[in-house]
């Protein structure tokens, strides 16, 4: 028997999680848009819209302190950040294209060296995904192997039902725990019919074929044609659920300061600039190529995963209308 939770109870669940001093993050109205933000109560949850930024920032904050330094009586000291104080978190209402991203990023943050900032947050969070019921012409999750009802990455997955309640599917132990700890809010019973799911208007892409094409088309006129238009801003990378490049910078003085890790983008001209002035990716052509290659080839070469969930955010955000879905389609066609 599946577990069912009504919408009112879902909001009550948030209330009680907040009471348990958990950090509850979910889609919330923020001015003209919806953003994943900490919810202070159940009423804050705003479902049915794709938040402007992805939920990756719960695990990989836009900017975080990684250590502090300073001088005590003239002696330089370095202090670690107390990661034990990272709060237990529940990400609630994450759409499949967002819920899926941490499981992609786990690989890079834990190969050989463990980035404990990411991993500690990851360990302490439970992801409650929700099936997606609305989409627009930028969505292409189905093209890259996700789906509006894909529970990949979720610990607990909610499917909206026609009667306004949600069918709950515990995907992992974390999800089961969440349900059993708040058993009174869930009830067992026959599920009503599922609400109609979003249906992105894209054909499934053959990612293996695309990768094969990328293997042999490091030099291709395609890159130049995109680079001519691309402005080299970081909008696409920053709102992407899977982009994970970062910069490390010191702020403050040698006497009192903080070392911070913050988002960076491979589209920026200075990203790879050497101190000598030599820049391996000196033109936009190479930088945009790196973006596509990293997502659909390099990451797969290294970690066996594609670095894209098809959320379409980069398409909506691009100031000059560069459309990664369109580019992939073109490659797909060229690859035969």
């Amino acid at each position, binding site marked *: 028997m599946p577990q069912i939770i009504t919408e009112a109870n879902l909001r009550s669940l948030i209330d009680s999680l907040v009471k348990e001093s958990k950090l509850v993050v979910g889609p919330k109205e923020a001015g003209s848009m919806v953003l994943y933000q900490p919810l202070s109560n159940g009423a804050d949850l705003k479902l049915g819209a794709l938040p402007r930024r992805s939920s990756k920032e719960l695990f990989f904050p836009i900017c975080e302190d*990684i*250590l502090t*330094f300073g001088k005590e009586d003239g*002696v*330089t*000291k*370095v202090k*670690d*950040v*107390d*990661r*034990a104080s990272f709060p237990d978190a529940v990400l609630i209402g994450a759409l499949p294209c967002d819920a899926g991203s941490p499981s992609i990023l786990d690989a*890079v*943050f834990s*190969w*050989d*060296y*463990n*980035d*404990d*900032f990411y*991993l*500690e947050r990851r360990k302490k969070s439970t992801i409650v995904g929700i099936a997606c019921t609305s989409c627009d012409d930028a969505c292409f999750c189905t093209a890259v192997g996700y789906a509006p009802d894909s529970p990949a990455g979720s610990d607990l997955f909610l499917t909206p039902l026609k009667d306004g309640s949600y069918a709950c599917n515990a995907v992992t132990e974390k999800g089961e725990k969440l349900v059993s700890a708040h058993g009174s809010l869930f009830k067992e019973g026959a599920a009503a019919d599922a609400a109609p799911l979003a249906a992105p208007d894209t054909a499934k892409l053959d990612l293996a074929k695309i990768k094969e094409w990328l293997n042999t088309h*490091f030099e291709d006129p395609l890159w130049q044609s995109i680079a001519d238009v691309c402005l080299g801003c970081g909008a696409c990378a920053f709102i992407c659920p899977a982009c*994970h*490049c*970062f*910069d*490390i*910078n*010191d702020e*403050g*003085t*040698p*006497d009192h*300061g903080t*070392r911070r*890790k913050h988002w*960076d983008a*491979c589209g920026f001209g200075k*990203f*790879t*600039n*050497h*101190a*000598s002035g*030599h820049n*391996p*990716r000196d033109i936009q052509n*190479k930088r945009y190529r*790196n973006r596509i*290659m*990293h997502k659909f*080839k*390099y990451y797969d*070469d*290294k970690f066996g995963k594609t670095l894209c969930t098809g959320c379409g955010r980069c398409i909506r955000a691009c100031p000059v209308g560069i459309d990664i879905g369109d580019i992939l389609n073109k490659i797909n066609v060229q690859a035969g």
Partner: protein
Amino acid sequence: MCQSKNIYLPNLATIEAIVDETPDVRTFRLVFQDENVRENFSFRAGQFAEYSAFGAGESTFCIASAPTRKGYIECCFRSVGRVTEELRRLEVGDTIGVRGPYGNSFPIEDFYGKNLVFVAGGIALPPLRTVIWNCLDLRDKFGDITIVYGARSEADLVYKRELAEWQERSDVRLVKCVDPGGNGPGFDGKVGFVPSVLEEAAPSAENTIALVCGPPIMIKFTLPVLERLGFTDDAIYTTLENRMKCGVGKCGRCNVGNVYVCKDGPVFTAGQVKAMSQEF
């Protein structure tokens, strides 16, 4: 409080000695402050570290001292940016941060019994100097050792005292050179660019490994020379020096194609470099 390691947390080290190699290149001899780290820090020739000037940031340099010499490490840098200028302001006794060692290394054990040719240009001698001393400290394990080293001008030659020492030694053949116009009166080396001086010196490729390090333009012209001398791609080693921030394969800026230079490199054979995406 028990938590797992913060991979971005540097060890503190004290600057024990400062040597000015050229007007803008400086060597630090560093000693770790923590006794435990001092005792246990070990690395292999070719590995690099992230050095921090607190308040300015971190910069990536190779560890320039030989792994065979314990108790300290050395780094060598040219002041060109925010961090290196801040480092330059530091004095003996000041504290800097060191994270590492990171990356792969030269497979020295595989070179046992072989002749070695070192080819370096300018500020790129430090990554090879660690290997040179490593090999000289185990001198009887190797055959002939030839060092071809050049810089723009006499003043730009780094490690001048060590060059003199190598020149004195009978078991090392040192060919030093400067670019045309960079020689002062009484310069005792050759005048010419590294690739042509190397061609002239013509070390035998027989049972020999070549280790090349220098600016991209020098490498570009040196590889064909080595090929003409009979070196195969697998007998040529070089290091890639890309911009890095994390040093541990996370931040995503040092990659050349699917190769993370900070983890898979920085030491590569010429064959490996040729197989990479040509973007470095």
